[in-house]
């Protein structure tokens, strides 16, 4: 069936596009429920302070105010993704740990009254010494942010493979460099919003999220409610990028206010609150030591990477690991020592990011180029030489299933005339290449798999029920398109019910790159189940063997004698008459090592498969101003088989902006725990006019287990676009970057250094 696909692989208009471009799509902030109240949050003005007392009584006297709460109204439960990281109360009662932390909140009939009431809440603090720099925080003299984490070390990941010291000693050349990068802002188009509605003992919630089931579970813990009484419902989401996978303080705030007032409560964060008080991205300091043979073969890697973790654990163990893993999934590393430290500081809460780890990854790639140059080798050849191939194991023993890395490198290099341009660079013009791999899903215990139900309705139309969630990347359309292929029913005839914890079953969510590989595989399985039932009836009715029947354009027909045919709607009705309506179920659980654990056992099969990608950037440096321009960008991505090439290209193009141009634009700026650029004027998200001329290349490696051969669609570019820019900078100037972003002043300083001047 795979070879004559009807709709999979076609450039279809996404099922969600029309509503979104016409403004018809509704988001959480658009929701209005009868009797709904508006919430506002009182936030900590201190980076670190003991809470002595919180008094909300005066706030309750403001006309229109229906509830006021603080952490003392919560249930004393702390949340963490892992048992060993449960340290986040969301509404603290002991002390505040960052500026902007949620301290108390009110719900009122309008926003004005809520704001007025906030000013009447009395909080007594005892300011404590604070620490903002992770290196400082690790010192014995630094203030302790959490009792249970000595030296503020939240997570230490230690990976040891082979004999690093011996290999380094034998290497032909060895280089060690340290790279820094500022944390980025997710800058989702939709600032965080949540509506909570508690009635009759049941809590309903709407919010942009990347995994409704994990969200509901976290809230059921925090609120001490049985899981069946917490329902996270479907709503459009205006972006997540990794920042909305975890439960948010606002979820708890809105829920408590709704439980107290007995009315629905809406909380919408401002743009600034979204940046300061929802999640942020880790600042990173990465020390990379590489040993290489004369022929460019990597023989050893030694890493020390420090992640500025902000005030709480969040996805700590994962965040501390991922940059390394996506690198070892790309290159053969026979001997490795990785020490990743996630360190607490008195800064906002941090999460995973689609472009997570830029100091580490761009550092590795740029350093490799400098070493290649020293050895008289071409970066393309060095990447091809060290790149993993299908069937190989990564350093921590995870098997590469399908692999188009080589093709992405070769095609991107050819399209950009890389080898020639790399040699012909000038002081202010360079070209660079970055490669990476991405796991399609990672171990999440019993949540690693997905299931789907499908029912065929009386007119032959279809309802698809899956836990898959869409944050804007097109997962919903993906599910519909896969179902359309299997059932021979046009996308328009398929209704989707998804991301609602009451009606859908578990799904890994959309933050581990598992939607296509895991979620859509379950959709495919469920639809195949239903397809079998349709074909069985058709076979009887048409008098042809089942193997001969195909489904297409709402019709079941014989492939041999196509005029033997009948509409699927007739078949459906036939099934109803028999009292056996057509429903299908299916699930998919990836082949992974469930014993694998981020800290205690970093070894074993990480994911069902991996995607691969290569970025090539050309840059121009204005040597007088330090401004970098990116005239051209080429991105090649191996997504297995693209279900909808247009959607994959969209992801790649978005990545060029969010990771590539961000290399020169984006970074959070701090002054003593205070975020200086929480708005979109001072936090520079690239605009359309800042984008380079982009060429995208889809490489198809046809994964043996992916749905129709599909894997994750586009994330590799999010994790190598910055490497391409950093490498282009190295190509032009012969130097490595020291800190990202490469802002004009930063570049000018480096150029001066190169000239031997001061500054």
């Amino acid at each position, binding site marked *: 069936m795979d070879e004559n696909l009807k709709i999979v692989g076609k450039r279809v208009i996404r099922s969600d596009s029309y509503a979104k471009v016409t403004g018809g799509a509704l988001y959480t902030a658009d929701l209005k429920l009868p009797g709904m109240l508006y919430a506002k949050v009182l936030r900590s003005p201190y980076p670190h302070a003991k809470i002595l007392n919180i008094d909300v009584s005066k706030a309750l006297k403001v006309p229109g105010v229906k509830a006021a709460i603080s952490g003392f109204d919560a249930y004393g439960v702390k949340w963490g993704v892992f048992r060993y990281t449960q340290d986040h109360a969301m509404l603290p009662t002991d002390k505040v740990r960052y500026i902007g932390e949620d301290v108390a909140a009110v719900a009122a009939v309008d926003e*004005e009254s809520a704001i007025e009431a906030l000013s009447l809440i009395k909080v007594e603090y005892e300011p404590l010494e604070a620490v903002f720099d992770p290196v400082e925080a690790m010192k014995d003299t630094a203030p302790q942010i959490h009792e249970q984490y000595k030296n503020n070390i939240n997570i230490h990941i230690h990976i040891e493979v082979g004999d690093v010291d011996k290999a380094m000693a034998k290497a032909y050349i060895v280089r060690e460099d340290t790279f820094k990068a500022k944390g980025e802002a997710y800058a989702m188009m939709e600032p965080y919003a949540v509506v909570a509605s508690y009635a009759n003992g049941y809590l309903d919630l709407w919010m942009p999220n990347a995994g409704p089931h994990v969200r509901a579970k976290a809230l059921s813990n925090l609120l001490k409610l049985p899981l069946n009484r917490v329902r996270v419902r479907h709503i459009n989401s205006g972006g997540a990028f990794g920042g909305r996978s975890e439960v948010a303080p606002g979820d708890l705030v809105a829920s408590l206010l709704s439980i107290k007032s007995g009315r629905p409560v809406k909380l919408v964060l401002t743009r600034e609150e979204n940046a300061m008080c929802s999640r942020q991205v880790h600042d990173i300091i990465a020390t990379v030591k590489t040993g290489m043979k004369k022929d460019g073969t990597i023989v050893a890697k030694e890493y020390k990477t420090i992640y500025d973790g902000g005030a709480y654990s969040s996805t700590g163990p994962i965040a501390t690991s991922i940059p390394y893993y996506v690198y070892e999934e790309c290159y053969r590393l026979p001997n490795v020592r990785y020490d990743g430290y996630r360190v607490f500081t008195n800064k906002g809460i941090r999460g995973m990011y689609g472009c997570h780890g830029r100091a580490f990854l761009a550092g590795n790639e740029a350093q490799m180029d400098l070493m290649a140059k020293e050895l008289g080798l071409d970066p393309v050849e060095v990447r091809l030489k060290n790149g993993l191939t299908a069937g190989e194991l990564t350093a921590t023993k995870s098997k590469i299933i399908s692999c188009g890395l080589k093709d992405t490198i070769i095609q991107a290099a050819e399209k950009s005339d890389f080898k020639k341009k790399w040699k012909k660079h000038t002081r202010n013009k360079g070209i660079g290449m970055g490669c990476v791999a991405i796991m399609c899903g990672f171990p999440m215990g019993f949540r690693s798999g997905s299931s789907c139900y499908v029912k065929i309705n009386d007119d032959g139309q279809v309802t698809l029920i899956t836990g898959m969630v869409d944050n804007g990347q097109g997962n919903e359309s993906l599910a519909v398109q896969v179902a359309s292929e299997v059932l021979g029913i046009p996308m328009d005839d398929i209704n989707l019910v998804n991301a609602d914890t009451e009606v859908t079953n578990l799904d890994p969510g959309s933050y581990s790159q598992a939607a296509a590989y895991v979620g859509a595989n379950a959709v495919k399985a469920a639809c195949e189940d239903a397809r079998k039932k349709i074909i069985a009836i058709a076979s009887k009715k048409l008098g042809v063997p089942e193997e001969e029947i195909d489904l297409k354009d709402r019709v079941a027909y014989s492939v041999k004698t196509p005029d033997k045919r009948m509409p699927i709607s007739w078949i459906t009705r036939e099934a109803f008459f028999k009292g056996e309506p057509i429903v299908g179920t299916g699930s998919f659980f990836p082949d992974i090592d469930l014993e694998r654990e981020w800290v205690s056992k970093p070894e074993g099969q990480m994911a069902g498969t991996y995607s691969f990608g290569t970025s090539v950037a050309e840059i121009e440096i204005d040597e*007088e*101003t330090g*401004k970098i321009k990116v005239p051209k960008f080429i991105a090649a991505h191996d997504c297995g088989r693209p279900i909808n090439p247009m959607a994959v290209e969209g992801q790649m193009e978005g990545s060029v902006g969010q990771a590539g141009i961000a290399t*020169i*634009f984006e970074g959070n*700026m701090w002054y003593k725990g205070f975020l*200086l*650029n929480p708005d979109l*004027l*001072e936090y*520079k998200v*690239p*605009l359309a*006019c*800042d984008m380079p001329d982009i060429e995208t290349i889809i490489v198809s490696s046809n994964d043996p287990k992916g749905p129709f051969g599909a894997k994750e669609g586009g994330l590799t570019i999010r994790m190598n676009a910055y490497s391409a820019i950093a490498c282009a900078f190295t190509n032009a100037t012969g130097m490595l970057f020291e800190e990202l972003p490469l*802002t*004009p*002043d930063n570049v*000018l300083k480096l150029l001066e250094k190169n000239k031997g001047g001061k*500054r």
Partner: protein
Amino acid sequence: MRSFEYYKPNSIEEAIKIMSGLDNAKFIAGGTDVMVQLRQKKISPQHLISLRNISELRNIDTKDGLKIGSLVTHDDIDKNEYIKKYYSALTDATSRLGSKQIRNVATIGGNICNAAPSADTACPLLIFDAKAVIIGTKGEREVDLNEFFLGPGKTVLEKDEILKEFSMPRLKENTGSAYIKHTRREAMDLPILGVATRITISLDKDSQIRCRDLLCTIDSISNILMQLKDEGLKCEEARIAMGVVAPKPIRAKKAEEALAGKIISIELFEEVGEIAASEAQPRDSIRGEAWYRKEMIKVLVKRALMKSIDRIVRPDEEIYPERLW
């Protein structure tokens, strides 16, 4: 945002009358500064008096020099071919101010009355020796734009005074101007630094011919200047203005003096850039550190001067910047 009363007078007189009878009132033109400040709670007026119905504030008059009404939008300026040709620095500023949506409503009067050190139209108006024409209960007065700003957000305007228009003298022959806005993004960004220059040159007979020849090439101005050396172009008069280097947009008067009467060369421009940098007192800010701003003054003054000359000698050229440096 608190609620407020909204007024929409049809004439300057009416607007002034309403204003003088109210406490805690504010004029509003395009509202692109006022509305932002309201939301940020930097201001909380009880009355907003819109100037948008006053059509006499919307004129562009090019009969003698240039007069631009305070309610003229940046987009109106952008589309004006006369301004583009003769007062090019102004178009340089408006064409990159905010975004199209902002330019459609935001006014030049609002930009100046808001008195941000980064206001994009301030430097171009300063180099064209603009005067602000002001009307109040006490009548009309003219203030040199150089004296108009008092500090960030502060101007000489009294409570019940309205800025009517900017009036700029006619420019001499052989005059060119440019404004360079140094930003990180291509749009929707405030300048790290803004520099505007205007220069009037004189050509003696010989060099005029050589000039023409050279200028027919697509050579960069810096190369042309290099080849012309001492016999070349003489600077008759010059203006240099800088934004975001002091509490208000300022003229670099010493740098202007250093240029006037001299034979033009790249070295001279670099020297002038240094002098201009010494006249600035930039601060460290989130958009750029002081040292960086000082360095950029040197670069941008030089570039703006070259661009200004380019516009004299190649007036019909559409695109300048790429081949200049």
